[in-house]
């Protein structure tokens, strides 16, 4: 209940406050979103597996976002930013799909 409420409040805050994403941060926003989605699916799956841990969830979310942004930042500096972005999206995307499949097996038994 409280987590759902917190998520809703976060979404409403994000919509109402209309945070202006600084220009230098904008390349990392898509990566942050993918990392966040990965954390969400991982958390839901862990919950269904019965091994959810809120600390692990939050830390994995924050660190995923930061590491993904760092990789892309380094890539940008080294001239392979676009390729590394693709790499991050592919890896996190595979994880998202894997976790989504596990969630589906849990919920639908199929």
């Amino acid at each position, binding site marked *: 209940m*409280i*987590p759902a*409420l*917190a*998520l*809703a*409040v*976060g*979404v*409403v*805050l*994000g*919509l109402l406050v*209309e*945070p202006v*994403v600084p220009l230098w941060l*904008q390349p990392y*926003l*898509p990566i*942050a*979103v993918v990392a*966040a*989605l990965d*954390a*969400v699916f*991982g958390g839901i*799956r*862990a919950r269904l*597996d*019965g*091994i*959810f*841990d*809120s*600390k*692990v*969830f*939050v*830390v*994995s*979310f*924050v660190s995923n*976002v930061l590491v993904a942004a760092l990789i892309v930042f380094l890539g940008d500096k080294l001239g392979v930013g*676009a390729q590394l972005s693709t790499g991050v999206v592919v*890896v996190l995307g*595979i*994880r998202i*799909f*894997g*976790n989504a499949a*596990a969630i589906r097996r849990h919920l639908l038994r199929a």
Partner: protein
Amino acid sequence: MRGEHAEGAPDPLVQRALELRGEARTRHRPQLGVMSTSLLNELMTYHLDSGYAAAAGRPKDRSPAARRKARVVLAVGLLLLGFVLAAAYRGTIRQAPDSERARQALVRDVQNGSALGDALQRRAETLSGQLVRERDAALTTSQAGDQVAAQVRRLEGAAAQRPVHGPGIAVVIGDAAAADQVDPATGQRIAVPADDNGRLRDRDLQGLVNALWAAGAEAIAVGGQRLAPTTTIRAAGEAILVDLRPVQSPYTIEAVGDPDTLLPRFADSDAARRFQSYTGLYGIRFTVRESTELRLRAATGPELRYASSVPSPTVSPAVSPAVSPAVPPAGSSAAAPSPAAPSSFAPGSVAPSPSAPGGGS
């Protein structure tokens, strides 16, 4: 992989976590060949953050304080997560529609403007047609009037103030087709606008038009815009403007002239030969075809800056002031159906001979 060395521990949670991983291993491990690397294997097999298994392996603090703390941590994390997602969403929809909205508004403005221009153009054509009829009717009542009318017709033809029709040739010339190129990064085919060599410039159209005049054309229209003696063909950025109105590739140049000599003389001109060779060289389109009947509309009248029509006492005040600047010099009397008042051209030469029999020209 911190759960690994807890293997065999009696803690049921650890057992559970390891069972889950074992299941995942046996059930979902892909049968990869010898070439597979452990990294790819890992990527395809373990989707869950290993932190969860590790945390499950640790003894859990079940005190109320610890649970409350965990809940707060979770709430803050989810708050942050929702915020990031919503911010990304907001940022995306704010950016894209902004540029899109501005573009739409500009497109609408342009469309409205050119629709208005077309309507005014049509109105001007109707009015000047009416003017010509009225004037001819007024002039053909006398011999001197006939002469004046013939002179006016000749001058108007030369000044392109009168629609014409007749045999002629139509030259269609177009930019080189956009070449498809493959984007090296994405592999997608992207349409690349023809490079500079394959794109026609204003001077190309000028050259062709001059060649047509030289070949004996009597009236020329480019992209439907009739060329008057003062009409310009010029470039504004990428666009080509004919009489200040944009024309687009492929450009159709219609020329009315003697059907026996116009085509051969034009085909023999330098410009035509040059563009013929450009078709092979740069891939531009260039076709010339003969036509037995071309219809060219009148050019827009010259814009009067200093001249204004002479007010005539017999003209009824039906002329709206918004129209009069847009029509040719004699236009102010055109709307009023009073043939007795040719206001701006040589009224004296018509009036003195009312008794002369009107010759039907």
